[in-house]
Each structure stands twice: as C-alpha cells, then as structure tokens.
C-alpha cells in the first residue's frame, strides 16, 4: 500500500483536480451540453496488437470513432505482450485519462493494475474479450456474444432448410472461447430440430489451410456432397478453405452445400458475391461507440451493464458486392 501511494502520487491528485473541474463546470455552466463536455474526454486504449485483419479494423474503427467525437485517444500497441499492456495502463493512469479501453491479451493477471485504475477513479472498459477478475474492478465489457453468433447461424440455417439438414462443422482452435461458445450456441438451437444433425465435426484451427484439409477429409468420408446439406464454419477463413476443397472435388459450394460462417472478413463477401457462400455473421469490430458511451454514462453517475453485447448482423449475398467494395 505504502509503495503504491508513493509510486503514483500524481494520479490521485490529477483525478481529484479533474473531478473538481468537471464539477465546477457542470455547476457553473449547466448550459454546456454533454457533447461540449465530451470534447474534453481523454481516453487511453491498450490494444493487443495487429495479428489479424479483424483486429486492425477494430483499431481503426475505435480511432475513427474517437476522432468523430473529438476525443483525445492515446493509443498503445502491446505487440501481444501482457506486460506491455500493464505498462500502458499504468502510464494512462499516470497521465490522468478519463477512461481506459483495454483489449486484454490474456484473461488472468489484471487484478493489480485494475485496482490501481480504480483507486485513481478511472473507469476501465474491456474491449472484445473478458478477464478473470472481480467485475467490480472494471466498468463494463463491450464484446460480441459468441454463443448468440452460433445460435444466429443455426437459426438462419434452420429457417433456410425447414429444419432438415445434415451439417458438417469446422471448429475453431480446440479450447478457444470462440470455438467453444459458437459451438454451444449452434448446438443449443439445432437441438430443437430433430432432423438437424451435425454428422461430422473437426477442428480446422481457424485457418484456411486447416479448413481446406478437413473439408477434403469430410468429403472423402461422406462420399461426396450427397449426404451433406450444409457447412457451418466457426470462422470465415476456414469456410473459404472449405469452399476451395468443394470446388476441387467438383461440388458447387452454396448450391450443393450451404455455407454459413462467422466473422465477415472481406474475402467472404467476395465469395458470397461470386455465389460460393450463403451467409456470414459479423464479429462486430465497431466497439468504440458503446465503449465511449459507457464511460460518459459512468461520469454522469448512471449505472452500466457489466456486459454490453455488441453483436453484428447477418449478411446475405444480396448486399455482398457492395459490402466487399466498402471493406476492401
């Protein structure tokens, strides 16, 4: 305790000052609208890195949202290292920001730094992933619900096939939360349909090569597409690999086998526009808006849900060409 307060004497002071300033403002100038107040918002954002196209677009979306609102966004790229993220959060605390966005690279080990932020009265919003810490230590989590994504895919497929379908499933990396929850959500819906069954399910490790190799083996094991009605892939990349495998086996993807997947990466829109995939559910990268809103709400003293679900829509081939042009 002693060491902490000596190590960070400033955040206390600056947080207090800022609070005093905000209070004075809101007392003296009640005419000042929320947006004018918001213009003063300084937010730190500790991002995991840029390991995938999705993460890059998440970063860009949050930066764009901050710019649109006129916020000062302090961005830090952790290059996949938790220690870098902890350093970044500490430096945000020292700078006395109004809020911190944190996309945690791992689930554990955040208690200490979250406590430090709490002591400095700085709300922390978790972005797209959760942490294994006491929920009172952070303001909220803004993330998609993987289970709902899986359930949405299953519902769409059930409607499309009148609840009668033999499904092959390409799972994500074994043990990843996206794979587990997307499967759970999907299974929970198809269990209501006695004639919908998953006949084959294997891990394609979230990669194109994996999706292709596993789909090849499914087609061999099932003797072609006769017995397969649909493919459910836990991400678009595996679906794209599987589409290649189908084409090489002389099977028409989306016609002989329905293809539904999750993520909405640009290439799946191209496949849909070319008539090779049927549906994708967006893993929403536009998390900046709800995250900033949560910080504003907490400043006003409003209560904020511990999980703000930011699920993306389901896209169909009719808008695919336009979406592809937009995202390319």
């Amino acid at each position, binding site marked *: 305790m002693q060491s902490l307060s000596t190590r960070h004497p400033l955040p206390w002071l600056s947080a207090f000052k800022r609070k005093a300033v905000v209070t004075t403002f809101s007392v003296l100038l009640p005419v000042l609208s929320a947006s004018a107040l918001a213009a003063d918002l300084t937010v730190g954002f500790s991002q995991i890195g840029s390991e995938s196209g999705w993460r890059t677009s998440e970063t860009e979306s949050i930066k764009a949202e901050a710019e649109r609102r006129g916020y000062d966004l302090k961005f830090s790229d952790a290059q996949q290292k938790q220690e870098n993220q902890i350093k970044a959060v500490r430096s945000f605390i020292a700078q006395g920001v109004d809020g911190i966005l944190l996309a945690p690279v791992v689930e554990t080990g955040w208690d200490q730094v979250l406590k430090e932020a709490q002591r400095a009265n700085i709300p922390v919003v978790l972005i797209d992933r959760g942490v294994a810490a006491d929920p009172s230590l952070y303001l909220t989590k803004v993330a998609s619900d993987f289970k709902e994504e899986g359930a949405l895919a299953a519902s769409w497929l059930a409607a499309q096939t009148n609840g009668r379908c033999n499904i092959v499933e390409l799972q994500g990396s074994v043990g990843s939360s996206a794979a587990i929850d997307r499967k759970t959500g999907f299974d929970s819906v198809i269990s209501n349909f006695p004639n919908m069954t998953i006949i084959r399910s294997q891990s394609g490790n979230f990669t194109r090569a994996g999706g*292709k190799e596993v789909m090849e083996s499914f087609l061999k094991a099932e003797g072609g597409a006769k017995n397969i009605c649909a493919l459910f892939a836990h991400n678009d990349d595996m679906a794209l690999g599987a589409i290649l495998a189908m084409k090489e086996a002389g099977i028409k993807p989306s016609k002989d086998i329905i293809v539904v997947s999750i993520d909405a990466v640009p290439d799946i829109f191209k496949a849909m526009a070319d008539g090779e995939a049927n549906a994708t559910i967006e893993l929403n990268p536009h998390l900046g808006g709800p995250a900033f809103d949560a910080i504003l709400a907490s400043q006003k003293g409003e209560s904020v849900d511990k999980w703000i679900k930011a699920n993306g829509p389901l896209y169909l081939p009719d808008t695919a060409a336009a979406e592809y042009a937009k995202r390319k």
Partner: protein
Amino acid sequence: MKKNHFLHKHQKTLAPLLSLVLIILITASVTPGFLSIQVVDGHLFGSLVDILHRGTPTALVALGMAVVIGTRGIDLSVGAVIAISGAVTAVLTVNTDWPVWLVIMCALGVGMLCGLWNGILVSVFSIQPIVATLILMVAGRGIAQMITEGQIVTFHSEVLDAIGNGYFLAFPIRVWIAIGMIILTLVVMRKTALGLFIEAVGANVRASRLVGIEARLLVMSAYVFSGLCAALSGIILAADIRGADANNAGLWLELDAILAVVLAGASLAGGRIYLLLTIVGVLIIQTLTTAILTSGLPAQYNLVVKATIILAVLLIQSPKTRQWVSGFFLKKQKAVKGSTTP
C-alpha cells in the same frame, strides 16, 4: 556375425515401413473406404492420394531438414521461411506483372537467402544451430507479416493453381515436384562426394577437417538447401489455398519435419541420414493426420491420439526394443537348435 549385421540393418529399414503399413491397415479397418481409389476426371481420387498430396510440403521440408541434421545441425526456421516465401509469392503475383517463373524464382531465392543467413550464423560465427535458427524462426514470421501487411493476400494464377492442386499423369503435380526433389537429393547425397562429406562433417568435424574437408562451406550449403526446400514448400502451401497466410502457413511444420527425420532412424547428433526412410516418416505422420480427420474422432482428442501412436512407433524403432526382440528370437532359435541337436 556378418549375417547378424545384415539382420540388424534390415530391421532398421523395416521398422518405419512396417509401422506405416500397420497404421494404414488399422485405419482402413476403422474407416471403410479409406483404401478405395477412384479415377475422377482422369486423376486418382481417394484418401491415400490425399495423404501423398498433403504430405508433400512436409516431405520437402523434411528433405532439407535431413541434410541439415546430417551435419549435426537443426533448422527451426523452416516454418518461418515457408511463411516468407508464401508471402513473397502472393505479394509479387498481386502487385507486379512479372511472369510466374520469375515470381517463383524470387520466392526460392528469398528462401535460399534465409538459409544462407542461418548458414553464416552457424558456420562462420559458430552459433549453436538451435539458437541460430531460432532467431529466424521468431523473426521470420514477423518478416512475412510485414510483407503481407498482416493480411491474408489472395492471388490468382493458373500456373500456381496447378502447382497447388493440379494433376499430371493421374497424380498431383506437387507430388511429382516432391519426387523430383527426392531423386535430386538422393543422387547428390548418395552418388557424389558432397553427400559423403556432409555426413562426414556431421559425424566428426575434426576428423573430416584433418582429411581436408572444408566444413564451413558444406554446413552453409546444407542450410541453403534447407531454405530452398522450405521455400518450395511455402510456394506449394500458398498455391494450395491461393493465398499467403503469414500467421499460420507452415506453423509447427519444423517439428513434423524433425520428427520425420528421427522416425527414419537418424540421430540428432549428426552423421548418417536416411532420405527415403525420412519420406516414410513423413507419410506416417500424414497418414495419422488424415486418418484422424476421416475417422470422426472428436477434435479435442486429435493431438493425444497422434502423440500416442508416434510414441508407439518410436518405441518399436528404439534400438533397445530391437535388442530385446532379436534377443528373444535368438534365444528361441538357440533353444530350438539345442533341442534338435543332441
């Protein structure tokens, strides 16, 4: 004595082959239709063809790895080199109008440069091979990500499509490429002095220096060759999915390649290597992968099953097991002899 030696050598060759046949037979009994091969569109179609097709990238990498291991080295960077050469192939195909052969030459050249880097670190600066190649293993994937700017770069090229998935004389083209490389390597390693020198350097550096072998150049050339093989494998893997996936292409392939070389009975301490048996080792690994995928086993058991079977194969091949088995048979023979001769 001489007969015993012959038997011994034979056993060493037989063990991996026997393991492969056993695995195929067991899979065939579990998965009906595993052995069936049909002719579709003038080419062969079936799980066995898939094994050859999917095994090529690992086979190529394992060839290079075998030569490096022969020099008492190891090359951990092959997976990263695969990512780099795939990235170069994709980016050049998309961004330039260069003819395909030039693109392929560039990718191969980059792979050889990576190999040269490893070779210089190992032979000139005398850094331990496992450390020297670890540097590129870590940095290489970053380089590949820089080349592709972190995205999966998709491309379209008829020649590359053919390399990835085309067929020639009923077999996948990439299998022919691998066969070509295997024959080339066999000829160099077995019919020229170069092969002898490489194994000599691995077996005993000082002795080979004393007979006047220039070890540095040989070691360097082994790493360059490994880089070339990895680059070729990278082109095939990128052509396969028509895109360069810098994060995942060739991930952990170095471990499969090392395993294949060891399954073939080579020692990581250098010296004698077994090229054809290395290919058998690759086929064992790939058969296992394909068998697990077609068997309908739940995904979470994949790795455990694979590891258990590999362990069994290694145990079958261990010299101790062979000693026990041959000892057992010798005793029996002696016992039989003893009973027949009064």
